[in-house]
């Protein structure tokens, strides 16, 4: 049983080896799941009742069979399904996701241009959601069954019950229109010249450009959408933190820490919280699904030029290359997050067993 020692993480060397094994195994499985994702996304568009040609051909021209036939040929819609599938997969391998019916640009170009905006929003929301959720969860657990606990519980239930697009509109109305303390739509004031794109993150690019006014503006634009988006996951996170903290605070090593003379903040953060990092990481990565879902809606409300609003436009106009592209990218981001989570587990918990 040479593997047994490494599973238990006997020491750092073997732990690293087990980790590597695991990542390799996941790496081998990944192309298959990816192919599944691509196939499913592709098949989805073939069950359609709507004619995708309506996206490229005007209503009048739809009556002209010549134009329709030409368009069909132009977009490859006249070929049999298996052939279209093979062509699509083949192109995909070369990084070609086809051309968007609407923007007439390659879908991959559109996505690359828009992904950073979504990443910036989702990342900011994840940070806000995690920080707020963990804080509320810790407070609720420590002051269990008090008013603080009840407020935290209500806050989290609200977060998972409120329609995010409505919340976005409401906050826009209150803070941007009524009090005028925060800017409205978009990533940056249109009257400002945007910084040169380096990372694609507006906040970082403005900093790199050394333009503090633009940076403050970009940051202010980020506040409302990321708060709205973050709130939806803060509730889930805080509930999980609370439940796990209640359990861990009953454990004996907490008494040991107090008997050592540790203060309550140290007991809660360093001793108790560190023990629940694994489930917390799980729920944060799991919340990624909600954040993507929420990002689609948040981006449409705040006119955020990311992948989410791109997906909405694509879905509304039956822009199938764009729809498949977005869906595949979403699935891939999902896979990557899950893999990163697994790696984080091992770093957070010395006793984790990989199997």
């Amino acid at each position: 049983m040479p593997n047994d020692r490494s599973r238990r993480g006997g020491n750092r060397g073997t732990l690293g080896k087990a980790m590597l094994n695991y990542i390799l195994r996941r790496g081998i499985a990944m192309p298959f799941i990816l192919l599944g994702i691509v196939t499913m996304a592709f098949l989805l568009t073939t069950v359609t009742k709507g004619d995708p040609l309506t996206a490229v051909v005007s209503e009048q021209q739809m009556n002209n069979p010549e134009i329709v036939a030409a368009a069909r040929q132009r977009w490859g819609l006249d070929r049999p399904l298996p052939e279209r599938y093979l062509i699509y997969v083949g192109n995909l391998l070369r990084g070609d996701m086809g051309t968007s019916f609407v923007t007439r640009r390659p879908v991959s170009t559109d996505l690359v241009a828009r992904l950073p905006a979504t990443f910036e929003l989702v990342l900011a929301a994840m940070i806000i959601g995690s920080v707020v959720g963990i804080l509320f969860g810790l407070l609720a657990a420590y002051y269990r069954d008090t008013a603080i606990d009840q407020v935290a519980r209500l806050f989290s239930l609200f977060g998972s019950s409120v329609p995010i697009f409505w919340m976005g509109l409401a906050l826009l109305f209150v803070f941007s229109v009524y009090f005028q303390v925060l800017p409205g739509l978009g990533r940056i004031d249109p009257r400002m010249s945007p910084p040169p794109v380096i990372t694609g993150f507006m906040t970082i690019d403005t900093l790199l450009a050394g333009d503090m006014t633009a940076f403050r503006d970009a940051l202010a634009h980020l506040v409302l959408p990321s708060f709205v988006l973050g709130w939806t996951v803060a509730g889930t996170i805080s509930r999980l933190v609370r439940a796990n903290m209640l359990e861990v605070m009953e454990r004996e090593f907490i008494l040991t820490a107090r008997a050592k003379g540790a203060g309550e903040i140290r007991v809660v953060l360093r001793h108790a919280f560190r023990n629940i990092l694994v489930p917390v990481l799980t729920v944060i990565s799991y919340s990624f699904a909600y954040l993507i879902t929420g990002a689609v809606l948040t981006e449409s409300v705040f006119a955020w030029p990311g992948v989410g609003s791109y997906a909405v436009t694509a879905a509304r106009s039956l822009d199938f290359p764009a729809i498949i592209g977005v869906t595949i990218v979403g699935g891939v981001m999902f896979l990557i997050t899950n893999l990163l989570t697994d790696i984080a587990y091992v770093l957070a918990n010395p006793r984790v067993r990989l199997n």
Partner: protein
Amino acid sequence: MTAPIAEADGVDALLRIRDLNVGFSGRNGTLPAVRGLDLHVSRGEVLGVVGESGSGKSLGMLASLGLQARNALVSGSVRFKGQELIGRPRRELRALRGAQISMIFQDPLSSLNPVMTVGDQIREALYLHNRQMTKQKATQRVLDLLRLVAIPQPQGRINQYPHEFSGGMRQRVMIAMAVANDPELLVADEPTTALDVTVQAQIMLMLRDLKDKLGLALVLITHDLGVVAGHADRVAVIYAGRVVEEAAVRELFADPRHPYTRGLIASIPKLTMSEDKLYSIPGAPPMLGALPGGCAFHPRCAYAQDVCRKVEPPTHRVGTHKSACHFAASLPAWNGGLGAAAPENGAND
């Protein structure tokens, strides 16, 4: 023959607990878990605190250090080196805990933080009471401590996690952590109960050894009179939240002056005894909310009279003993077993 306890009793002791009460507020009022506990321990002394689980022996010590559960109500007096601990600000209690008074617990696996290395946990104990200590110096001290508790190859062990240690080694780590700041008092709560029999003796010898080396006072909380017999100087027997008998260890075993102590001693297994003859005290310890009136022990007592059902006995001095029994002075002579004294409860042949 009997005399009330003098107010000055144990007044010079390192730790002196007087009339300590710990209760839990429940739906039907307060449930008393510790009822007027009196204890003291002097420098260099080993005090054995004996009782069944749930008797309040651990809770009393925890509450003395401010480590009780949040819903517990504590009153009474606990003086450490003459300074009152009850009602002390939490901050000041924290400064005492782990520095001048340390504790170790029953199960070293669950008492150590599973996600911190052993070295970090001991270092933390040092750091908490000496923020100026450099990391290098702290590591040096951790290594010395691990050597002190006879952990082989401390260099390799310092970065390992608790689950990589055996039970006995973990308890040594706990002890190293407890003595890290040269405390004056070490409270060991069932330190060997969760360990293998062979390891138990090693740990007890180590504690005694450290006591002599470091000049500690040791409070040894246990349910096992056998452990106390071998290692304590003085013994306090606790039943239903109060001390029912206290004496020097030799005298306690030679001539127990409380029926409960007699029952406990009679139930120590002896090599010469076959298992079916093993004595056990009839009945079960009382539930928190259902303490019997009068003497809490009377339903299980072979000597119980009417007065025991009505009046809770005060603690009296009987010779060199202190005993909380109405008949402390007039109990029949002790012959090492309950067979003759209480035939109806004794082991039948």
